[in-house]
């Protein structure tokens, strides 16, 4: 019990609950199905990206390129599908986009694993390269006429409600993709040696090498997987907004990293859970979408998230500092 109370997930859950209650009290619309669906809808893309980001952060790295990879992958995939005049199932779009994302992610992974370059610098560099390459070689125009499969997927819903104005609000199927991916990542991180290896790598790289872990292989896997998830999230994003804009998503990586860090992942690596990340995503999405319900100007959203990050990481840092001071006296 003491462990639960001390865990960072507990704090985030508490903050999320308190926030929900406050917003709900001030504006009861918050607790409507309509708003819930809306929140889920806007959380899906951030959520899928956050799962990849979590894995990188646990391994002791930082990736700032996944948002660029996401839009690159879906933009190129859409161009290809349109060129093929392909109008079949959305699965092909997912496969194609995920494959492109994986290739780009592996490019990051190769630079990081073989040349042992700092992860943040590599991904800062490659995200700029990917973006430039996309604008130069693939295009700069918004694609409005998406393949039928993607559009149909975006309209498919799990449930629907109609609001007071008679408008129908649906819960998009892509929510299933997010929760499915979350379960898979959770299983991998908790019950496979690969996942435990990622934690070990984030805890102490030298010890991981000495234990006989294939650190290069693990890093390739991590960044490949981030690319894969980014490719998936790109298609989800396109299906929800019904177009592909090469200038979309870029810049959202900071929100995603914020969500993961708020969810209790340690920025220096080694700690972080899928559950915490989901809570972190909820927090960021609620802040981004619901402050408006409180009548707080949307300009304040960013500042509010910044304050939360400082508080969230500050509290844990302060706690560990106090503990180490206590240890000093004991030892």
């Amino acid at each position, binding site marked *: 019990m003491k462990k639960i109370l001390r865990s960072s997930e507990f704090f985030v859950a508490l903050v999320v609950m308190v926030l929900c209650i406050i917003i709900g009290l001030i504006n009861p619309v918050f607790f409507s199905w309509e708003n819930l669906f809306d929140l889920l809808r806007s959380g899906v893309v951030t959520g899928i990206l956050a799962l990849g980001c979590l894995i990188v952060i646990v391994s002791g790295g930082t990736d700032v390129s996944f948002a660029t990879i996401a839009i690159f992958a879906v933009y190129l995939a859409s161009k290809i599908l349109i060129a093929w005049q392909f109008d079949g199932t959305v699965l092909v779009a997912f496969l194609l986009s995920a494959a492109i994302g994986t290739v780009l992610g592996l490019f990051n992974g190769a630079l990081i694993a073989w040349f042992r370059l700092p992860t943040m610098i590599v991904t800062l560099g490659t995200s700029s390269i990917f973006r430039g390459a996309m604008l130069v070689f693939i295009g700069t125009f918004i694609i409005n006429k998406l393949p039928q499969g993607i559009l149909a997927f975006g309209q498919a819903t799990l449930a629907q409600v109609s609001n007071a104005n008679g408008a129908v609000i649906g819960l998009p199927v892509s929510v299933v993709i997010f929760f499915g991916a979350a379960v898979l990542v959770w299983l991998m991180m*908790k019950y496979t*040696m690969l996942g435990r290896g990622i934690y070990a790598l984030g805890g102490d790289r030298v*010890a991981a*090498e*000495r234990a*006989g872990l294939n650190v290069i292989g693990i890093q390739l896997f991590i960044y490949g997987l981030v690319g894969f998830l980014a490719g998936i999230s790109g298609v989800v994003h396109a299906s929800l907004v019904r177009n592909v804009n090469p200038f979309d998503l870029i810049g959202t990586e900071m929100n995603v990293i914020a969500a993961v860090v708020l969810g209790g992942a*340690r920025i220096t690596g080694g700690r972080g859970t899928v559950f915490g990340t989901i809570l972190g995503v909820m927090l960021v999405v609620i802040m981004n979408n619901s402050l408006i319900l409180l009548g707080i100007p949307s300009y304040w959203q960013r500042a509010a998230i910044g304050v939360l990050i400082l508080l969230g990481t500050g509290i844990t840092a302060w706690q560990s500092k106090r503990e180490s001071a206590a240890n000093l006296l004991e030892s």
Partner: protein
Amino acid sequence: MPDQILNVDNLSKSFAGVRALQGVNLTMERGEIRCLVGENGCGKSTLIKVIAGVVQPDEGTVTLNGRQYRQIRPIDAIREGIQVIYQDFSLFPNLTVAENIAFNYNLARKKQLVNWRDINRIAREAIAKIGVDLDLGAYVEDLPVADKQIIAICRAISQSARLVIMDEPTTALTEKEVRALFNIIKTLQREGIAILFVSHKLNEVLEISEKITIMRNGRNVTDGNTAGFDRASLVKHMTGREINETNAAIVPQAGNGSVPLLQAENLSCRGRFADVSFSLAAGEIIGITGLLGSGRTELALSLFGIRPADAGTISIEGRPAEIRSVQDAVRHGIGYVPEDRLIEGLFLERSIGSNIVAGTLRRLTRRGLINRAAVGAQIRQWTENLHINTPSTELPVKSLSGGNQQRVVLAKWLAINPKILIMNGPTVGVDVGSKAEIHQIIRDLARQGIGVIIISDDLPELLQNCCRILVMRKGRVLEELPTEGLSEADLTHRLSATAPAPASGTPAHSGQRKQVRPS
């Protein structure tokens, strides 16, 4: 020869042009306990890393259980039953005790999936084997060093090891824990496991080993049955020269001058220490000792302004001095050589030269810009004065051996021209030869009029160098003993007489709870 587990043949390895190993040979057989001894930087750590597959040799071969390897990967070594317990333990701080113990076991068996019940079982079995009690669910980063050592040993024995290599395993252990470790080693031996024991503590080496291999400067010096060695011959082979460890010829000199250099009166810091009074004269060396938790380190931190005292007075050369911060302390000419040089005393990744001038950079400037010539001159001066042994001062400090690292820390503080030097554990993790030299440096400093405070567990060190010893317990100074006529047995007795109970405290000799990285 099925009984031969390890055969190292004519191994050589260089790092950045420095010969770490030159034609080294080593053989280990089933159930053999062998000690590998040598000064810091003699190549012991490199040899271990080659056997473990972490470092690839330039020349020579390693044969494990009859299979010859030119290149060993860590996983090969583990599959051949080679287990290394490194000085830094190589544990994962972010994982639990149970997972740390079982991690390598699962990895070596090429498991893909994790069964948490298995992990707990493996950990429980290993812990039961050495008869200790640990919270399996605790995170390793929250545990004290001694527990980490035990976890590392549990991890090694949880895998069917044929050869366990222990690099300085007793550095962080108390006397009682050392006994327990020796019992474990004997148990392992009965099961046919060979132990390669690397240690600085020669008494332990002579006690536990059956055979001894001595290295010096990257070469084998000698090899033989333990019965054929004694302390003096070990020291001689290790250093290549005669060192009189007892050094009775040196009489600690008393201080001079009528006004004490440093005078502390009723110094207190809530929760850390209380009512500490003492004085230090110029040219005097005094010692502070006490069991862990006695407040001796806390006192030093206060004198150096890291955690300022909240009551009492400090005067320096008769004038009252306010020491509220490290800057204040440095301005008053106080230098502090910390307990853990790796964490507190050095910028490990930076060059030797940058470390030496780190404290004095501001004085080595001209119109706000760094004066390269002055910096170079200062670096040269201190590397020569303190005999820091390195091919280049541009190399990172972490490339140096323990003794040389300690000299760099010393150089950094001597460069500020201190009047008072506080040294916390000045020779922890330092080999016999360097230890004698560091003691010589300390005495020379005192002769030049610097007042030195040595905080140490090493009673012979205190008795040889200090003229008075303050014994602390629970934050208070119990006694102030002149060393003249004081014997080690006497001092041990005084220390343990003040201990609450032998089990919870640290017997004076071995109580250096410090983590020292491989040199």
